[in-house]
């Protein structure tokens, strides 16, 4: 196959695209730069802290567990729920109360498990999580 020779204008445009790509790639690298990388963060700590809780919940007869928060400040959002759901799977955390007997309560602000008026405390799972049972 004969060598394909681009015209000068096409070559110039190609060179401009290369320059632009170098600029874009350098810009992304600069934007994303941070150090150190892949160190333990809040999520990893929570995952480690909940190892015991995960074992307890997985031994419950039903994988559906009601999930409540106590003292949720405006720092609590739905991502937090999905983060917890990911960590505690295969248990399924329900935010409504239908047919559940067990209730996992997260004490968002105090991180201290205390008795609740309408529930019976089954076990303090540590790190602000309590397993309760509806009477």
């Amino acid at each position, binding site marked *: 196959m*004969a060598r*394909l020779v681009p015209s000068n204008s096409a070559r110039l445009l190609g060179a401009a*695209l290369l320059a632009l790509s170098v600029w874009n790639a350098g810009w*992304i*690298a600069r934007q994303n730069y941070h150090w150190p990388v892949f160190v333990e963060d809040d999520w990893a700590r929570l995952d480690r802290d909940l190892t015991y809780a995960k074992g307890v919940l997985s031994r419950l007869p039903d994988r559906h567990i009601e999930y409540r928060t106590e003292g949720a400040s*405006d720092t609590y959002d739905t991502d937090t729920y999905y983060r917890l*759901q990911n960590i505690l*799977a295969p248990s399924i955390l329900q935010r409504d109360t239908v047919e559940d007997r067990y209730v996992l309560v997260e004490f968002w602000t105090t991180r201290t498990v205390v008795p609740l008026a309408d529930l019976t405390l089954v076990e303090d799972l540590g790190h602000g999580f309590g397993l309760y049972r509806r009477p």
Partner: protein
Amino acid sequence: MFAVLTAFSLVVPVFVGSLLVKRISADIPPGLRVALGAALGTAIAGTMYFLSLLLSDSSRVALATSESVLGGGLVILLWSRDRGLRNGTKAQPSNRFYILIFAIVAILAGAALIFDLDFAKHAGGDALVIWNLRARLIATSRTTPLSAILDRVFLGFHPDYPLLLPALVARGWQYTGSGTLVIPLALASLFTIATVGIAVAGLRQISTYSQSWIAGCILAGTPFLLGIGAAQFADIVVCCFMTATVVLYGMYDLDLAFSRLPFLAGMAASAAACTKNEGILFVVVLLTSRIAVAFVRRTWTRSWREMLEFAAGASLGLLTLLIFKLTYSPPGEIVSAITAQKLMAGMTNNQLNLTILRGFRNSLNFGQWYLNPIPLMAIHAAVAWKPAPASTKIAPWFTATFVLIGMLCGYYILYLVSPYDVEWHIQSSLDRLLVQLWPTCVVAYSVLASSRSPGRERSAFSRGRALRIAAVLAVIAVTLAINAWPAQETQTWIVTGTRPHIELSRTEITTGQSYTVKIPGIGGHHVYISYTLDGTPMGQFATHVGTLGSAEFQGSPTTPKGTYRFLAIRKPEDSVWVSFENDVSITVK
């Protein structure tokens, strides 16, 4: 041991895929073979796992089946002989300057990807609530993982999405025996790198070497492509399979001696369909393009054989998808919204069409570039394009361009019939949909700018000069028009020192009913709203407030019952909450 198991879970499919590509067509050079092998090998592993999961509803059986198939396939491939071995494609003179620039861009992009992977290592958005959560439910459920995935608690998160990606992640987690982040991160990196690799190595076959490096630089210099990869979104997986399909058909159209490539293209296309619903649209558009090719080429026997090859390659994936869609998946919200009546109503609704067009216009920087390469690419293609000689009939850019236009039309129609607030729908999805098509766009541009069609080099530059000048002027005009059109019509926020007013369209709803929250004076923003349920603080939720200051919500079966009271609002980038001036509440019964 952990590292060995992680590597083993990825290396085996890549090796099987590469070997399959070699056996199907020995003419494919090693670089492209490995890149395609990475996509196709993981497609086989994921599809087999997905199919077996549907049939057995057991993650252990699914793992055993997928690994047996991979092992059996490996043995068969090792014993079989290469096909189609010829002299191979003639090498072009390599240009060290282009390689050097690509190396610089690749190093910078590689560093950016690592930093991005660290930012999003726990997955973001859809990857967190859909893909990785499903993978975790599959990998950890002692019994019936499918019932866990399709549990009513997760009904709001597209249970109609196919399970190829969760299957791949779950497979890796079963190998390592833990839900380590390494598996989804490694898969995300694999698909991101394979996408660029397939485009670059494939363009070396259907375009010029120098153009393939330019294309590689453009792709590696696309922040959002790296971003969706790092965030572990399924979009990068679909993107990789789409790119593989388009490149394979480009090679097939350029040289019909690659007669078995439609088989591989079928595998890649069906894998895209098994990953996300956009992949199903892709298969439809692709088949339409090949039917169009058959009509243009008028070689019916050859086209029939091509279709059979494609069907053979796609059969496993499409069968798996069919079983999932017919047996397990609830109807998709968008697909079930498509009716001729709604489509006609959408097409005649000027305001809706304008909103969608504006959405497309606002998404032109979908790659989140510092410097957008699209205008330069368009001018480059317009200046350098030379028509293929009449004997070629189907140029290698045809399928890529057809797919690109067909998919964009498909997305436009889906927005026309969208059951959601269209402004929110576009804002939350269009950038990702466009970046899925970005490598296909780069392939189409590259082949237009530097096609390797036989005889093309003899075309005189002067031919079609007027057409080219018109195209360049059109690109400049469109670019200017885009810049002249204001980006957002109404983006308003709370005046400092005042408090916003909030209105609710209803005071009480039951499951299935919806209500609108309206905050006059706020428009076109993503916001956080803090709230209480029966007096208990519940934190915040995120939503998009449209340009008219309203957002719609629907009560689902899993919405906790009680009285909701909305307290304050803030922008994601602000930490300061602004309380509403009035007290409103709604009761969910």
